[in-house]
């Protein structure tokens, strides 16, 4: 695939080895991986939007999908399969979206980057950045208790994957994913307690 050559990479970190180290439990590597993926996704979002111009949408799912194609082409055969990639990238996407909401709320418009797939039409549905922050903290807590549940929330709520998509990625049935989603909601609701307005 020639795309990796076409778009010079902004990230020098070798994601393949960062993922390997993170999977071995290396905290520092996990942090570096987060940062590297964050920059990567951010950069790609900007790039796609400037390329396609206004009026064309860029969904989180598509962004992740493109990111995987790009990165795996660049990193070569040793790069983890798509599902392992998504496990990390989904968490990063959550950070990206929260930052976006935060910056947009601070600046009303523009901000970190313009991600047109984020709802602009139904203002009421946009959660407060603070609420999302609390949700994110609760998710991190859930990740220590039952990482699979946390991952489902990242993939569904923050990345927009369907239950079917997630089932395919996790190799379990759609029904199992749905049930886990309900369980995750219960857990998070308990932690966050008072409901996030508008969410």
């Amino acid at each position, binding site marked *: 695939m020639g795309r990796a050559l076409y778009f010079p990479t902004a990230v020098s970190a070798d994601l393949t080895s960062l993922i390997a180290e993170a999977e071995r439990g290396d905290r520092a590597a996990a942090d570096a991986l987060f940062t590297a993926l964050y920059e990567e996704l951010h950069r790609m979002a900007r790039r796609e939007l400037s390329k396609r111009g206004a009026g064309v*949408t860029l969904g989180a799912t598509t962004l992740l999908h493109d990111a995987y194609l790009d990165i795996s082409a660049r990193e070569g055969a040793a790069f983890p399969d798509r599902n392992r990639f998504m496990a990390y990238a989904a968490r990063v996407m959550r950070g990206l979206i929260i930052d976006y909401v935060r910056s947009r709320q601070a600046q009303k418009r523009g901000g970190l980057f313009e991600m047109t797939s984020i709802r602009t039409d139904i203002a009421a549905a946009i959660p407060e950045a603070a609420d999302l922050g609390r949700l994110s903290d609760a998710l991190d807590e859930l990740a220590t208790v039952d990482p699979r549940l946390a991952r489902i929330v990242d993939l569904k709520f923050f990345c927009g994957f369907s239950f079917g998509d997630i089932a395919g990625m996790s*190799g379990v049935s759609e029904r199992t994913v749905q*049930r886990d989603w309900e369980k995750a909601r219960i857990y998070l609701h*308990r932690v966050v307690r008072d409901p996030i307005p508008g969410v």
Partner: protein
Amino acid sequence: MDSGRWLRVSGHLDRVLDLPPHAREASLVALRTEDPECADEVAALLDEHRRLTDEGFLDSSPIQRDEPSLAGVKVGAYQLVSRIGHGGMGTVWLASRSDGRFEGQAALKLLNAALIGRGGEERFKREGTILARLRHPHIAALVDAGVSSTGQPYLVLEYIDGRHIDRYCDEERLSVDARIRLFLDVQAAVCHAHANLIVHRDLKPSNVLVTRSGQVKLLDFGIAKLIGSDTQSASTMVTNEAGAVMTPKYAAPEQVANGAITTATDVYSLGVLLYELLTGQHPAGEAPKSPSDFARAITEVEPIRLSAAVHNAAAPDAAALASSRGTTPDRLGRLLRGDLETIVNKALKKNPSERYPSVMEFADDLRRYVDHRPITARPDSVSYRTAKFVRRHWRSLAAAAAAVLLLAGVIGFYTSRLAAERDRARLQADRASTLSELLTSLLTGADPYRTPDAKEPTVQNLLDVGAARIARELGGQPEVQAEMFTVIGRVYQRMGLHAKALPLLEQALAIGRRTFGSESVKVAYSLTELGVLQRELGNLAAAEALINEGLAMRRRLLGNVDKDVAVTLVELARVLKDRGRLAEAEAPIREALAIRQQMFGDEHRETATSKSELGLLLWERGDLAGAEPLLRENVATSQRVLGADHPNVAAAKASLAGVLLSKGDAAAAEVLLRESLATRRKVFGEAHVEYATALNSLGNAVEVQGRLEEAQMLFEEALRITRPQLGDEHARVAVMMLNLARVQIARGQGAATEPALRHVLSVREHLLKAGDWRLAQAKSVLGASLLAQGRDAEAEPLMAAAAAGLQPVPGPQGRERLANRARLVTLYEKLGRPLEAATYR
């Protein structure tokens, strides 16, 4: 809530959430009696769930999923109306013709530009035109394929309002027959496309819709290829992209393996689809954990039998499954057994050439089934399955697991049969031997003496699991259990896994003594086998005692002229030799040879082996002239009787080579040793101790001819293989260490050898009797090492002791004796002690 508490209630929560909301509270009644605290907790969480559902907690995501901004946008001649689908490939929109030429609706797919790649537009349009010509009542037509002015590739398809075929079948509670008839329509469509040289490549339920009127419509024909690039790997990747998100659930083995994609690929995917429509499950069973597991399952695991799938533990609910097919689980199981199973199996063959040659023939057989006519596909015979099974060499854990299942099935079968038999005692012996025969035949694939290219790691796994099952499940039938332990123990032993064999053979002996009494042929057999193993493990005293006990028992039970008595005599002689009692070893060897000549004649492998044993003994005692003809006869007879590639022939050649080397004919020895090495590599593989031993022997012949660097490499390689398997305390390892050290000293690397040589000496002091020449050999080489380090004073006593212990016996002993004496002469001359120098000259 801490993680311990959460995980404790988590399982209950799963169960409760699976129920419809109104039934949830009631289901806690049972839990409340056994664990009220937990029940309260679950109830509280359910309450939480009700509240969050009411609030719509997390219902709407901060990112949009319906992209309303695109509605109304024009793409080519179409106007987007609303989004109807979304996948890795892109998004699907309901669209209407904007120029008014065509009334009605179409489905418009906006593809990720990445999927066609740069420069792919022309090909995309060209192939799109070909696909657009494909017209069939059961195929959703491709109306147009193009790239918009903004560079967005898109496809326009006939819009189908329908349900996925699997959902349709379940929701309409179609019977097995009705499902097959619907499936025949799917096949007709695929057939038509194949006739037009178009392969679907991505058949799966979401690509097969059924309309409200019950019409089947296949979507996305050929599109996987259309959006694929020219290279194979990219096209399979895209197939994956086009899938439900990378799970290659419907991919054929050749797709997973990047093989050629043909119409046979669609035959396979149709097989999976039919399997799912009939059983509600995937042929590989419960979804594996990761896509790579799935890929492995597709390429390696045989599908679960159709009828078994119904009762499979993984089945969500056999009753629900059956009821959605308008029947009961038992009836469904019976319905799927036989012809349907055979048909589906044939479509799901891993090897494309074993599948139905075309979808047409697949469909014909199904039609025959529906019409109650005989089908053409034949069920796999037992011998076919077994042959296939053995051919695969348990390459994967999954296959090993299947073998264990088979094993367990065999055991289970006999267990129940035996229990039902009235005359148990009489029948058990028969059954046990049949059983062990069966098992032996199963395991022959793992025995290097039978099939040369067995893959050891997974065979080992198979054996491990098998042994555990035997221990667990056959306690009630000690006779069978003892025999099974022996069989598995022997296979371990032959694989060189001696430590694993030991507990099994020990248990077999203990069970045998309890069950058969103190005096029995089976106990005598166990004694001998265990003795042989102990010898291989280097426990020589234990080995001698066991073998003597076995020998005496066999003599009493079988008489003096008996083939098993001869075997035991040979083993006894080997132990005696290993313990350095060469003189004592000659009598049993000669007795064994006499028995075999009397019973089998000269042209027999066992007679030949006896000659070899005797030859080796004579050689070791210095009688080269006596040894050589015996060993030559052994090579000739073994080759005739066993064939050139048998490991025994390799051993025979190595022995003869040893004698030739002792005689000074190193070049002839080398030829034989290279032949022997080649055979062992072929038969045992390069990780086996026997192969390493051959490397070591070759090293000797090479060393004698002065090619020291080559010899060193051979010894090093031999050690690299043997040390982890036998451990450093093993006599064979000691021999190799000593050989390596000697070459290193000769090459001027003497200083490095001292620790190894001290180790060899201590091992030999432990294993051998005082006075054994090999002790002297170790001292001699250690002396040489110290000498090379300039530590003359320490070297001298060792060398002098060695000189006393080494006799002028041709071979390694004689060679070491000469070398040692030469070193002594040099040393004493250097020290100015000419008298002593003269003694060794």
